[in-house]
């Protein structure tokens, strides 16, 4: 029991650190793409600490106040539902409690909380961003869920451990090779999940200042950022588990998540942004069609 708790606590702390570090690296990479030097890789830690130590902050009501908690709880729950390293039972955390469907739905928990906080802030831009985000989410979740169902049905299990365990027979048994179309659909859906361009219509700083967290400040904002970092790592773990054969060791876990994280960063830094309806339509048709190919294959 105690070891379980220790493992959970370490997972959270480690994921937070890794998420913030990845964020810093991504800022650096983006800066290099722009031909700049960019910030330190530890910049995100500094930012979080600064925000955490700001001496005043404001709130707009109960939901606004609780939204960061929703966000961080949702992120932690997703994180703990995904097994980290294969073969080490201790790192499976809470993943025995549910399957892929549960994961898909519990991912909404944080989003919903954040949306509610944004709504309670009363700022029109925050709500516009939420309406965009939800519309886009409903679009990419389509291809994402088709792909997940295709993979899960193809491997005859909904459990993430089961899916990971089925990919241990060498690199060719990875789902990205066994289900190439579903994986392509999922990887396209990964971009809007990470709010990467060309799908970054939620946090569009140019037109709706920073989107949902417009009114968030100080410590609440630091919670939001931590939640985002945690959630990002959780999604990385999920994708690594679903597509890239999971991780057999800590090193491969870090390498795989790092490489996967770099993919939206690189894509993001060279693309402009879609309009909302363009993004929705693209996500309805392109990745969905790709994922459907594998679904049909599985059904036949």
């Amino acid at each position, binding site marked *: 029991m105690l070891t379980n708790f220790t493992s959970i606590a370490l997972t959270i702390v480690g994921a937070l650190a890794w998420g913030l570090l990845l964020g810093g690296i991504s800022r650096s990479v983006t800066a290099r793409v722009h031909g700049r030097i960019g910030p330190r890789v530890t910049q995100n830690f500094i930012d979080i600490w600064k925000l955490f130590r700001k001496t*005043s*902050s*404001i*709130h*707009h009501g*109960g*939901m606004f106040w609780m939204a*960061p*908690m929703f966000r*961080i*709880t949702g992120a932690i*729950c997703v994180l703990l539902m995904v097994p980290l390293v294969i073969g080490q039972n201790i790192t499976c955390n809470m993943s*025995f*409690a*549910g*399957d892929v*469907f*549960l994961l898909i*739905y*519990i991912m*909404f*928990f944080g*989003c*919903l909380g954040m*949306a*509610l906080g944004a*709504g*309670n*802030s*009363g*700022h*029109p831009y925050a709500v*516009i961003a*939420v*309406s965009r985000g*939800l*519309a886009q989410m*409903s*679009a990419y*979740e*389509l291809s994402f*869920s*088709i792909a997940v*169902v295709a993979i899960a*049905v193809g491997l005859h*299990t*909904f*459990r993430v451990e089961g899916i990971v365990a089925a990919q241990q027979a060498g690199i060719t048994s990875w789902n990205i090779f066994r289900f190439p179309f579903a994986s392509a659909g999922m990887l396209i859906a990964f971009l809007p999940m990470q709010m990467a361009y060309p799908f970054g219509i939620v946090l569009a700083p140019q037109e709706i*200042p920073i989107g949902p967290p*417009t*009114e968030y400040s*100080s*410590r609440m904002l630091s*919670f939001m950022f931590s939640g985002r970092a945690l959630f990002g790592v959780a999604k990385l773990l999920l994708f690594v588990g679903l597509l890239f054969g999971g991780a057999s060791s800590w090193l491969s876990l870090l390498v795989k998540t790092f490489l996967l994280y770099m993919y939206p960063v690189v894509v993001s830094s060279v693309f402009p942004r879609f*309009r909302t*309806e363009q993004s*929705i*339509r693209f996500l*309805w048709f392109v990745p969905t069609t790709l994922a459907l190919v594998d*679904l049909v294959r599985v059904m036949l």
Partner: protein
Amino acid sequence: MVKALAVFLPLLGAFINAWLPGKSPKASRAVSYILLTAGLAAAVMLSIQLDAWNLNDLSNSVILSTGVGTPPLSINLEITAGGILAAIAMYAATIFSLHRFALTTPRSQPLVLGLLTASLGLLFATDIFNSFVFLEIGSIITIGLTAACKCGSRWEAAIKAALVSGLVTILYLLAVAALYRSTGMLTLEALGTLTGGSAILVTILLLTVIVTEIKAFPLTGWGLDFYQGTSSIVAGLYSATWSLAVLLWAAKVLPLLPIGNPIIYAWIGAAGLVFSQLAGLRASSSGRIMGYSTSAYASLLLVAAGTTTGAFYTQIVVVLMVFSSIAKFSLFMLGNPERKDKWSGFGTILFLVPILLLAGIPPLPVFWAKFDFLAHLASSFPVIFYAVLTGLFLEAVYLFRFWSERSEKTNEKSSSKPSAVAAVLLMLVAGIWITRMSWGALDFSGSIIASPGLRNIFHGLFAIGTLLCLPGVFNRIGREKNYWFWLLISGAALTILPAAGNGITFFLLWEISAFAAVIGVSKGVGAKKGTFWYAVFASLSGYLLLAGILLSKGSFVIAGLPALLLTIAALVKMGQFGTHLWNIRAYPVAPGTMPAFLSGTASKAAVLLLVAVALNATGGALPWGRVLAWMGALTALGAATLAALAPDYRKMLAYASVSQLGFVLMGLGLASILGWTAAFYHTIHHLIFKMALFLGAAGVVYRTGTSEFNNLGGLVKKMPWTFAFTLIAVISFASVPPLAGFGGKWLLYNGLVEAGWLPVLIVGMFASVVAFLYSFRLLHGVFLGQLSPKNAHTKEAPLPLLIPQAILAMAIMALGFKPTLLLNILVPALEAIPGLSGLAPVIQGDMVLTTMGTWNAWMVGLMVMGFFGFAFVFYWISGHKPKYVGQLDMGFAGEMPPSADEVHYSNNFFRPYRRALSFLPKIHAEKIFNGAAKTFNMLGDGVRAMFTGDGRTYLAHSLLFLLLLFVFLNGGM
């Protein structure tokens, strides 16, 4: 004998009244009242003597001879049990209308009494020439009454009636002459002895006379104009006395005509029913509508004469005609066409009872007659059965439209007279109904849902759902009327519904619940259109249900067409696949907690029906399960999308309700244990969360008076508890763990994967994601965002609305954290059903396992609540106290927002989504239904063109009909 004679007291009254000087109206009125009351008493005593109130046997009769010698010199009367019921109705109608005659045209009192006498005479006449005499008296008095009334178009009506009665007289006398010449007798029985050419001649002549007089379809025209032209009081008296007498007389004569094969009557009647009711769709004035309704009943009489015989015939005809006449009388008394009366309050309901009676809605007596009649038709004459059913449905449509148009809110108070009329009417109705009930056609053994576990679940659902709606019934906004009584009746009928043991019981309870709910909905402000749509769809599903049950011949339902009809009835009730129109029209206008009841509780009756169909037709699996699952999935997706774009809170919830029931349909269509577990789980969950949402909406509407998103927003500050409960319900129906909604989805998806229906699964998952759109829209549009200055003084919703919500929210939490509590009951009950395929989910402690997935709701719940609590405590103790700022204090480019309304994003909320959808063709279910309505109206217009309003046309119709009959019958023989 004396008592029998006393029936004719009004004749005496007529004479006294005619001779009394007009200057003492009080005296003449007193005489009239005394004589009429005496006559009524005599009739009642006679009816008891003849055992007429036992509607099962109406064959008793008393023969009464007057004068000297034999007819036609004397008058011989046969007072039958059915006739005496009609006589009572006539007396009652005359007594009630005399008052108004005395007020408007005091001089016409002798005519009124004379008309009653003529009617009674015609009712009991046994001799064809006696009948002629009474027919003439009646016609002339009618013309006189019409001419004497104070209304603009009385002359047209009178002249048309006179024209027709002239033609009728000629034809009738010809028939009498022919009869006398060939048989030498003038009794009605003599008709049966005719043979050869004279038989054809007499048949043709008398049939034309009868069809003209009873105003059956091709010869309806003059009746329509007459009802429209004359004053409502004359029309009312006419329909309750003379028209009734003519109908019953026709019923007496028709079987005696030597026509050979009486099925011809049925064909004339069935065709006439369909056509006349098509034409009736376009009628607008109450007179014409009553005219079309009369035509419908005349056609029914013809159908009955053609398809039934003996005591059954008498019973059906008497019950149909007597009660429809009473209903028409009440409608004329209540809905005065000259003054364009509109009814409100109690009057609306008074107005509705006769409409329901005419439309044949249970438990009113006409229903029983129609039910038996239709059952008989269904077993022997299927084509006529469908025609009659169509005609009756069309009649119900225009009657309900009539009612909804008239039941607009007005300032006029309902006066005591109509309520007195209706009170008597209700007494009659209730008396007959209770009599009939005691015969024991009903069966409450619950055998249509064989599994007691499922039955108890449904009992519990309906009972709890109704009870939770009750506390809030008195919190209605301003002009909404009391509806609790109807909610209670509807809920009670639903609660008994699972105990139904046969088709008729099920149908009875179904219709009681549906129409009590219709009345309840009609109490809302501006509920006119919504109520109409609800009533139309309720009767549609009712008639489909009726047809299915009747075609199943004895058992509740059999596979094939009856099962299909019942399934469609359930889909209409659920509002699936295009029939959602009534949901989105009725829910937003229903008063107070009524939508909560409709959506949360009443819609589960459809689930019950589907389950019953599955259990009875095939022993478990629903027929056409795959089709149903697809329909459910597509409905879930379409309705969810529409919900996201809806501009009104309650409308959105209505769409959401349709969408969520789509998931139930998917589960039921699966026909596996997992699927049914999911369906039942989701049914229960839908009841819980939808009631919580609609009760919250009721609170919002109660406090703010509106449910349009553009007028709401920011209410979380004012109604924190309502928000909290709504939030819980929303998180739950968005199926976010750890609340209850996820379980249903998880079970359903597992079931779908197990069955290999992956495309359905994908559509379902997409629909559940789209549910996020409207879940946020709902919360933001009402509770979050900026508080409009309009709602600045809103208070928290009243406790009677909050407490049920709190209970429901707790139920959601309980079901979310410990779904095994429910699954442990559900799964064994479903495993016992033999027709279901697939493996049951395995429950180990808190863990639920299927072949492919696992779900431990308790652990997930603990995890979520644990981390949430941890974050909360950390937040709290870290000593950081954010400062609360006003709602307009926000980073707005340095400006101050001009007003809360201008920065509240509400209008056109998911605009990009709507834009992204723009490639889809715009299919509106509304347009489809409107198109159907338009087509029907066009057909109706075509038929209506016959009725030109010119008396000569009507004469031509009669003669043409005669000619056609001649050709047809001559060719046939």
